[in-house]
Every structure is written in C-alpha cells, then in structure tokens.
C-alpha cells in the first residue's frame, strides 16, 4: 500500500471539492443520526464527568432550551444520569464553534459538496458576548438563541433557497483577498454574506420588523459566516476521509479537555492528547489563568488550509502572532512545511497569489516537529462568561505521532 498514492487521491478530492451553502434545516430532520436524546458537541468524544466548564454550561443551556430540564439542577442531573447521550458533531457530518453544542430542535446550515455529493452541517452563530457556545445559559441567552433559531434561521433558509444556494468556495476565496483568514477574522466574509443574502431576503415576504432584525443580525455579527465556512470545510474534508493508506489529517477538533485528530486512512479513530491553553491577547480584566483549554471544531478551517494557515492574508490581526505583517507571512510559510499541496482556489495576495497550504501530512508533522498553527478564540473556564481573548494555539505533537504509529501498523506491519 503506497501512502503517497493514497495521498494523491486525498489531495485531489480536497482541491476538487465544491461546497455550496444550500439551505437551512432542523437538526433532527437533516443531521444524519440525530436523535431527540442526543446532544452534539465539539471535539473528540468526552463524557459529562470530564467536560470542561464552558461545554457543561452549553449542555445545560441546550437541555433547558429543549425543555428537557426546568432548571440548572435538573439539567445537571439529567446530563449526569446517562439518559441523554453526548456525541461529537464530527460523528454526524457536523461542526460547531467553541462548545459546538447542537440539539435536536436547533436549526443548522446545510452545505453540499457539489463535486462529491456529501453534505455537512453547522449550527447558527450567536455573535459575541454571553452566548451558548461559551457555556452561557441565562434566560436572556436562551431567548436570543430562540429568536435566532426561530426568526433568523428560517429567513436565511428561504433566502438561500431563492438564491439557489451560495457558493462557499468562491466566497472563501474572496474573503481571503479581503483580509480574512476565515477563522478568527471573518469581517469581510460576513459582509459578503450579508450583501449576497440581502436582496433575496427582501423578496422573502418577511414582516418589516423581522426583516430589520435579520438584516441587523447579519450587519452586526462579524462572525455570521464562520459557521457556514466551517461546514464548507467539513464538507470538503469529509469527501477526502476514508482513503486507505492516506496520512492526511481530515479533522482537528477540541472539546475543551482534549485535542484530537482523525486521519483519512485511519477510519473513525481519534488520536487525542490534553488540549493546551491558547497563547494570546486577553480582553481587559482577563488573564491566561482565566482561560479554558482550547475548545471548538473551528480548527476544521486550519485542517482545510485556511484560518491560521492563511494568516498571511490577514495582516489586520497580526497582533495574535507577534505583531508584524512579516510574522503573518512567516506563519503561513511555516505551514507549507507540513502540507502536501497548495490550494489554487484560495490564493493569498500577500504571497504573490500562492495557494494556501493544504492537506496536513502526519508524516511531515512528526518529521519536522512542526504542529499545525491554530488561530482561536479563548473561552473563560467558567461557563457563561464568554470569550475573554483570542490568540494562537499549537496542538500537541503526540496525537500525530500516535496516528503515524497506527498508519505504520496498517500500511507496513
């Protein structure tokens, strides 16, 4: 079995993938394997007793939201009882930022990979502040979530249907030329998102108040497009998963307790290690001691070759990586050391339109000792406080080494 030949197939699939945001649906109706007693979360599998603060908070919030518990105490009891199940979003073709908690009645974006026919899903972004994805579950948090889910989501779904879908590959390509890297910075992409959706929204027959609310949601949320971008990356990488012998990483994700990866040629196995605490800049009043270990499925962006891998495209946020545009260039250049190809669809103007470093090879990671760079938001370790900073994290090398061992066993025992 030839690893390089398998990787060629994987690379081809990643580059050929064509994710399109086709609509919105209810998780229970559209997410494969979704059940009423199931709560999806970010990262590799984790049990209630090992969940970090923000993830527990988000689970409590979801149980309250679903009406499965009346208060926090009941929710905690229920979560601990085993009567509700917890599974990674990644086991259901889904991704979610930070806690990534998605329950049955929540709406999800549907992204279809037009080349390979597979679909991927992501929940809705609530914006900044006290939000469920950071583990907040106060009544006003759930009220806003309900409004997003009941008003914004159906409206966007209708608009997308009218538009015949929104080309995510083209939109990501454009946002990279406008100063976004698609993970920590999505200002340009979210603006493009709003601009493309607005005319269709106007034709959806919404009440004036509703339309104003939806447009304001798009106008005020710099992260509005993050979740569709993540689903687009997931749809791309799922198509590349499961090629026997391949050493390409198709998933990197964190649950706030552990960081984990999956590899195309190694099936459904997770390779995990304790999640590190990000290094970064903190909002006033917060320090590194307040930070939760790294959390969220948003590393799907780096896995697909954007996010920190496209840092050179986002000089506006260089403070996270050292302070100068030169550092931003260096961040992307370093990622070419551990990737197999460059994605011509995602060209970086600052690097003379070189494609983003794409297809992380576990062999290259182990050989060079360079682990993927990840741009990330930083969550407070207590549930519900929210985002306290943003920065950079380097996942541990151990999961990549473990994956290499597993691959060697499989390919050349």
């Amino acid at each position, binding site marked *: 079995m030839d690893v390089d030949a398998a990787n060629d197939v994987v690379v081809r699939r990643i580059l050929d993938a064509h994710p399109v945001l086709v609509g919105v649906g209810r998780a229970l109706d559209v997410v494969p394997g979704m059940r009423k007693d199931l709560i999806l979360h970010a990262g590799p599998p984790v049990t209630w007793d090992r969940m970090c603060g923000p993830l527990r908070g988000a689970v409590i919030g979801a149980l309250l939201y679903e009406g499965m518990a009346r208060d926090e105490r009941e929710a905690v009891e229920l979560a601990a009882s085993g009567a509700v199940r917890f599974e990674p979003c990644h086991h259901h073709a889904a991704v979610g930022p930070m806690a990534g908690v998605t329950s049955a009645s929540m709406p999800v974006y549907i992204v279809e990979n037009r080349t390979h026919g597979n679909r991927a899903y992501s929940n809705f972004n609530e914006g900044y502040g006290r939000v469920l994805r950071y583990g907040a579950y106060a009544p006003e948090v759930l009220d806003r979530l309900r409004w997003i889910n009941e008003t914004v989501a159906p409206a966007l779904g209708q608009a997308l249907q009218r538009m015949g879908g929104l080309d995510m590959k083209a939109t990501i390509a454009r946002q990279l030329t406008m100063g976004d890297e698609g993970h920590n910075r999505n200002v340009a992409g979210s603006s493009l998102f709003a601009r493309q959706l607005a005319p269709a929204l106007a034709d959806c027959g919404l009440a004036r108040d509703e339309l104003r609310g939806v447009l304001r949601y798009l106008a005020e949320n710099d992260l509005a497009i993050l979740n569709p971008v993540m689903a687009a990356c997931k749809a791309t990488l799922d198509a590349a998963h499961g090629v026997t012998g391949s050493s390409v990483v198709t998933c990197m994700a964190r649950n706030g307790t552990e960081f984990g990866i999956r590899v195309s040629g190694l099936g459904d196995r997770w390779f995990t290690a304790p999640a590190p605490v990000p290094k970064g800049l903190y909002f006033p009043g917060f320090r590194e001691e307040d930070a939760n270990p790294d959390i969220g499925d948003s590393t799907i962006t780096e896995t697909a070759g954007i996010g920190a891998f496209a840092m050179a495209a986002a000089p506006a946020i260089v403070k996270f990586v*050292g302070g100068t545009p030169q550092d931003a260039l260096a961040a992307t250049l370093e990622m070419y050391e551990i990737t197999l190809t460059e994605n011509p669809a995602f060209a970086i103007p600052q690097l003379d339109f070189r494609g983003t470093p794409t297809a992380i090879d576990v062999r*290259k990671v182990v050989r*060079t000792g360079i682990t993927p760079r990840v741009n990330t938001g930083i969550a407070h370790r207590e549930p519900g406080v929210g985002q306290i900073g943003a920065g950079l994290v380097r996942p541990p090398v151990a999961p990549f080494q473990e994956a*290499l061992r597993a691959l*060697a066993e499989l390919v050349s025992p």
Partner: protein
Amino acid sequence: MPVLARVRRGSYHDSVALLQAQQALRQMPGVEEAGVVMATPANLALLRGAGLDAPELQGAGPDDLVAVVRARTQAEGERALERLDELLSPRGPAGGAPYRPRTVRTAVRALPGANVAVVSVPGRFAAAVAEEALREGLHVFLFSDNVALEEEVRLKRLAAERGLLVMGPDCGTALVAGAGLGFANAVRRGRVGIVAASGTGLQEVACLVHRWGSGISHGLGTGGRDLSDAVGGASFATALAALAEDPGTDVVVLLSKPPSPHVARQVLALARRCEKPVVVNFLGAQPPPQVGNLYFASTLEEAARLAVRLSGGHPPAEAELEPEAVPWAAGQRWLRGLFVGGSLCAEAQLVLRGSLGRVWSNVPLSPDARLPDPLVSREHTVVDLGSDEFTVGRLHPMLDPSVRSQRLLHEARDAEVAVLLVDVVLGFGAHPDPAGELAQAWEEAVGTARRAGRELVCVASVCGTELDPQPHGSQVERLRGGGVVVAPTNAAAARMAGALCGRSEPRGEAGPLPPVDLPDGEGRTHGVPAAVRELLRGPVRAVNVGLESFAQSLQSQGVPVVSVDWKPPAAGDAELLELLSRLGG
C-alpha cells in the same frame, strides 16, 4: 577547585552554538575552564583531559549534551551553569524576522534557481538531507562526516540518475564558479582546475597556485572515499569529465590519497582521454614517471608547482631552509605533528618518513604505523585532529582550535619532545584568527618547557591567501611574533621539522609506498550531465543546511544563500524515524 556538570538528555544544538555557549561560560566570573559538548566518547575523553570530569558524565551518550565547568567556588560554578539554557536558547527569529525555511523543499521555494545544497548537519542525519536536496534537483556539497559508506553509494547512485554531482561526504571544501563552499580560500580565478578527494589537499594546492601567480577555474571535492571500490569514483569521474571539457580549464589536477587500484586505473584511463595536461597526486603512493598527458607528483607542493608551470606560470624553486642549531636538552628527540588538515597531515608524513623513518599516526600512510591510541603520542607522531574520532559531536579543529591548543600544551610537557609541526588553515568558514590562537598556545607551551630547562621549536605552514578573511601575511606575522618558525609550504615545513630532528637515528623502518597502477589505454568517454555543466557556468545559488557560518561565508562572497533552520527529524527519536522511513515520509 570544584567541577560541576549538567547533562541535557537528547538535546541537539548546532556545534557553533555549543562553542559559543562554551566560550560564554568560560568568561563568567570565577570560571576557570568550561566545556559544552555532545557526550561522544572522544569528547568525554577531551573533557577529562582538560580536567573537566564529574560523576554526572557517567552514562551520558552521543545524543546528550553535557556542560562542565571548573570554578573557583561551588557557587560561582552553579551561577555559570544556571545560564546554560539561556546561552543555548535558539537564535529564534525575533519579531518581524523573515521566515527561515525548515526543509530543503521550502528553501528552494524561497530561493528560485538554487543549484547547490551545502549540508553540514550531524552525520547520521546528513544522508537524508542530501537525498532531499537531490530530489529537489540540487547538487550537494556534503560537508558532514560520519556518513555510512552504503549511504554514500546510494546518494551517488541517485545523483547519477538525476545528472547531479555529490561532493562529499566529508568534503571540506570546493571552489565552484568562483564561490568557495565549506572551508574555502579566496583564490583568484584562473586556468587550473582541481578534482580532489581530499579537502585540505585542494586548499593547499589552490593557495599555492594562487600565491605562485596562477589561478583556479574550479576546485571540485568528492569526499575521501570516492575512489574506494565501493563508491567506484562516481563523483571523481563526473568532476574530471566536466573539467576536461570546461573551456575555462587548461590544466587539471587530481588529488587523492592512494585509491583502490581498480578505481585508480579507471580514473587514470579517463584522464588519459582528456586533451589537457593532468597532474596527479595520489598522496602516499609511489609516483610513476610521466605518461602522455599525465604528470605525477609525490606531494601537494609538487602538484601545485607542476600545475603552475603547465599553465604557463613560473613557480619559485623549492625553498631550502637552514635550521639553526638548537641546544636540545638530553633526551629531547621526538617530533610531534598536530594537524587540522588531513591531507596536510598525510603530506607531512610522506616528507618525514624519508628523514625520520617510522612516523606514528592515527591516519598512517601504512598500517604498521597506526597509533594505538590517537590521544597518546609515541616516538615521532603526527596526528590528524580533524579525523572522525575527534570530530563526532564537536566542531572541526579548523573552527575550534582549542583541541589543538590543549594537545600542544600536553606535548610540550613531554620531556622527550623537541619539535612541533603544525598547519594553520585560513579561509572562509575557518576560525577568524587561527594564528592568534596557535601563537597564544605556543607561548604558553614554550614557557612551560623553558621553566623545565628545555627549548622547543614549532614549525608551521599557513594554508591561505592574501585575499582570505584572515589575510595570509598578517597570520604569518602573528605566528612569527609568537616565536613560531613559518615555512612557505606544508611540505617545506615538514622538511624543516625533519631536519631539526634529524640528528637522531631514523626510528624503525618506514614501510614501502604502494605503486600506482597505470591503465592499459584510454577510458571510455564519461558524459557530463547538463546540470553539472550548468553548475560550472555559475553563478552558485546555495541552500545551506547546518553550520550557520557556512551561510555567512557564502553571503560575504556575495553568493545568494538561504539557510534552512534545520532540526533533527522527529527530534532524533529512533522509533519514529524508523516508522517514517517505512512510510516514505
């Protein structure tokens, strides 16, 4: 005086970084002596020799870094060692520094048109780096030593498939299209081309050709084992063929220690086809008389003289130095040669065997003169301090003269020693002031001997040119100022040192020199790959992997160079490396 040590298991650092840390430790308050080395057996022996022994060194191995200090007080020693990690911390890119590629693949991307990789990483990693470079289409200058023979064969086979040239492993120097790689002297360009399986042989001949008024077109190194049966002269043949057709070369010089007879015949057959005069010096073999276009020289000096004459120049006659009578004390009779250059060491042995009989060496001309322990001299002894047993896990003595300084002091304490013979090698990549270091050590050595009522003489030659970063003239002056006798060539220095010792009876029989087997006729033509021709047209654009000083010396010559920020693959973990090789990563 307390001796304190620290061991860092499995820690790799550039040997220049180690040297800098060692020097910084030495300069700290209260520190008498310091050593920072990889714990190879040879390095541990050197540490012990310098009075730097500590229980912690037990069980330290070649992958472990050890730092040892001898200090006035325990506290001062502790304070110095506390700064070790800081001193070793990588010269990481400060904010805003340009990206330093980590692999040859990305370096080539950063320097379009790169044509040579200069590789000087530790031996056991060197073949993999060289292979990566070949696969990226680069010629390889492989400075690293301690590369396995089968790896060399494999690399040269790969190079042949790809039409590329591998200079090395253990290739000290090369002059390619005017650029000096590795330890290289600044010589004028001219009509003499050199192919050399010996680094300092190439340097000595190139410098003499320069100093005697001619110049060098190219000086291509091949590594010392290229003319063995296993390697079969793979690089030598390609380099010779390239110079044979090079329009800038009128005379070709071939330098090697005596090759395998079979390979020698092949190489000489190829040389016979060359339509230019070819000067051959198989250092340590009995030179036959001229055959057609082949001129045989017994020493490097003679090879340089022939090359200059054949290219139309007028070399000076052999210098006759009249040694002054020295009032030796009773029992003073031995010569001790301490060399940093392997070929210079061999040339000295060749000259000395005539006057002194058997000369012991760690790299002897004949096996019966092998020194049982390279660290312990006996009778007349000439040691190559640049050979593998001294350089595993530490800097070459051309860069770090302290090994020789210590040995010099040690020999000077031996009441039976009369004459010391040394080489000083200048050029890019070499120590910034080797003569200064040597003169300082010599002053101390002479002082020690005189206090014991003995006179000592040190005879040196300086391999270099006026154009070198350490100008030849001022280095010679520095030595003379320190009381060292300086001869114009290495051979002349050996002749003079031999004459100084020559009153004693020759010691033992020097075994016969091997003959040179001449070919029956001319060899088949050896094609020159287009990429090699291209390389000689220049200019050189280099990817440097390993010693940072080689990149700096290329930069100072105006050669575009990109430096790989190299680290051992998989942090040197044997299990992971094995998996990677199985998985083709």
